[in-house]
């Protein structure tokens, strides 16, 4: 395999050129969504209680994080009869605190902030409104009335890492992070561990689009595409992205190079144009909708008592997608999943 690799790099890895030694796009296209709907018959009745949710910068329509949160709160409104209001901060995110404050003074007794960027602001506001319940996705706030909704992204990343290692013929895979934040590094850590689990000899190339503080890395598809192209040209045949909207560039690069890509947050197979579907190996699914829905439910049943709620493989908050049928050995992944659930494997977070 290593001989193959050198030949790939020395002829410069012509993009679009197929090489016998690399995984190519062989997936099926046109499959429908198979996710099951949120909620169950036993869910409590909120009888019109007011729940507010503030999105992360980027807002609705990102087909990822925010849309997923929206699905969760919408399902809560439908199944549990709560009154909901969703807001979106301005482009720089300078009015997160104001929006939460507005909801709190407007009689919203539960407020959800989507994204760790809410942490500092929420800490203050939770103190100002001690009788309101707060929840933060991806964050921890040390206030008795605030609950952190955390995900074991490393577990899901571990599994897609394993899938990548299985699929890689070149024994070389890549990772594209949007912004080098602590959160995205967790994805990286899990992914690397998953790869190593299958084959310690597989190399992982890691690229971040922008350093922490410059959040344009989550919304610059051109950067995403060029970077992914660079990875594919370097010989990587599977690339996992945790780069938000920049990920669309990664998928395009995968299609152009006829290699594989892994989606993130939701099942991205369902979001890309049909022509790109065959190149989506799998997606690391992070059920923000589940987290939001669960938090509302806990609130209604009086179970929202501060601290954190962890969403992981065990409770279905984290998962991986199988659509397109590209994963070489799904059974092995299910097996690994079970081992993680059983605590036999502990996935590192850094």
């Amino acid at each position, binding site marked *: 395999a290593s001989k193959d690799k050198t030949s790939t790099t020395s002829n410069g890895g012509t993009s679009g050129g197929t090489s016998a030694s690399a995984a190519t796009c062989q997936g099926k296209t046109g499959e429908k969504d198979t996710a099951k709907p949120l909620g169950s018959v036993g869910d409590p009745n909120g009888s019109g209680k007011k729940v507010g949710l503030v999105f992360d910068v980027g807002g609705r329509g990102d087909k990822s994080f925010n849309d997923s949160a929206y699905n969760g709160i919408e399902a809560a409104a439908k199944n549990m009869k709560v009154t909901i209001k969703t807001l979106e901060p301005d482009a720089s995110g300078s009015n997160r605190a104001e929006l939460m404050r*507005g909801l709190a003074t407007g009689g919203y007794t539960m407020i959800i902030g989507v994204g760790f960027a809410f942490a500092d602001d929420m800490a203050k506001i939770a103190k100002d409104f001690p009788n309101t319940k707060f929840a933060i996705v991806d964050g921890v706030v040390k206030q008795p009335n605030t609950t952190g909704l955390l995900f074991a992204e490393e577990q899901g990343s571990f599994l897609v890492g394993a899938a990548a290692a299985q699929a890689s013929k070149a024994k070389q895979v890549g990772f594209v992070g949007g912004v080098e934040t602590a959160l995205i590094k967790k994805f990286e850590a899990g992914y690397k561990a998953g790869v190593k689990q299958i084959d310690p000899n597989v190399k992982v190339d890691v690229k971040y689009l922008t350093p922490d503080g410059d959040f344009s890395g989550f919304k610059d598809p051109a950067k995403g595409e060029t970077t992914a192209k660079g990875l594919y040209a370097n010989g990587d045949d599977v690339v996992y992205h945790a780069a938000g909207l920049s990920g669309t560039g990664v998928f395009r690069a995968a299609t152009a190079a006829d290699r594989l890509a892994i989606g993130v947050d939701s099942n991205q197979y369902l979001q890309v144009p049909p022509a790109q579907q065959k190149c989506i190996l799998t997606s690391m699914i992070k059920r923000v909708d589940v987290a939001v829905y669960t938090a509302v439910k806990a609130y209604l049943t009086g179970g929202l008592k501060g601290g954190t709620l962890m969403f992981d493989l065990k409770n279905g908050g984290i998962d991986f997608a199988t659509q397109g049928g590209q994963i070489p050995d799904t059974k092995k992944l299910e097996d690994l999943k079970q081992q993680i659930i059983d605590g036999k494997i502990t996935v590192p977070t850094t």
Partner: protein
Amino acid sequence: MLLLAAPLLAVAVAVAASALVLLATGNSPSKVFWVMAVKGTKTEAVVSMLNRAGPYYISGVAVAIGFKMNLFNIGVEGQYRLAALLAAAAGAAVTLPAPLHVLVILLVAMATGALWAVIPGLLKATRGVSEVISTIMLNAVAGGVTALLLEQYLKAPQEQGGYTVGTRPIGASGRFPSLNAAIAHLGIHLPAANRLQAYIFVAVAVGVAYHLLVWRTRFGFDLRASGSNPSAAEASGVDAKRMIVAAMAISGAFAGLVGLSQVLSEAGRYTSDTVIGGLGFTGIAVALLGRNHPLGIALGALLWAFMDAVQTPLANEGLPKQITAIMQGLIVLSVVVAYEVVRRTAARREASELRRAMPAPEVVRA
């Protein structure tokens, strides 16, 4: 009178134009403007406006200093980011009596901003590199340097499960109190959750310093002369190169203060979320709106802050908050057009005055 009428007229034009946009897109302009006028003048919105106006103002002044001598400092963006990080880190590293602690933080910020801004100044003075290019490039580089410094040297140990990377918190002596208690003495009682930040005083101080420096000192005269007519300034004894470096340094020193408002008030530390991006570009718009005049910039900053602050009530009412950004653009354009009309009228008046002062020639009729 005309000078006051112009901005008012401009705002009216901007309102009318955005009303058309709203109508065309099936929204109700009356609802939007009603919310702006009523909710936008409620306490929360006013507090939010004032808190925002401070950084906008300082950024506007930083840009205006450059404009005063035809230097286009697009680099405020990078200057304040770097400065805020280093000042926050310095503030967390030391403990001093209250006023001194704050002073040290502000001075570190100013020094950092000045040093980062001197780079394009020196490049222009010694190598003729256009400051437009170099500040654009240095903005990007500042982002990288900030991330590097924070990541490698300055970040606080992370809490379990937290993802926010920031410096360690600044001690209480290094922070600005909220003004709520103070203005309660004036009979204005703000809800505890709406904190009016004392950083507005820094903005006022910057404005006063800007005015004195530019209009009352020899240095300011040299600066304005260089902006108005560089070759005449040089012939009058101004060292053009030193002036470029000095102007960039002062602009950068003010820019250094732009990002500290949240750091010293609410957050108490630097994180990439407390110090938001884009303030440098806002500063350009605000400086231009205010025609580089200390009070004009203040009006511009307040107007800008108002438009930003009403986004929250608009969003709360489910109205299209994006209209505020459109209005901001429209206001900038219509204000300058209105000023231009005023300028032409004034010039006409001046010319006729001049003519009247001259001896009138007799009219010869054929």
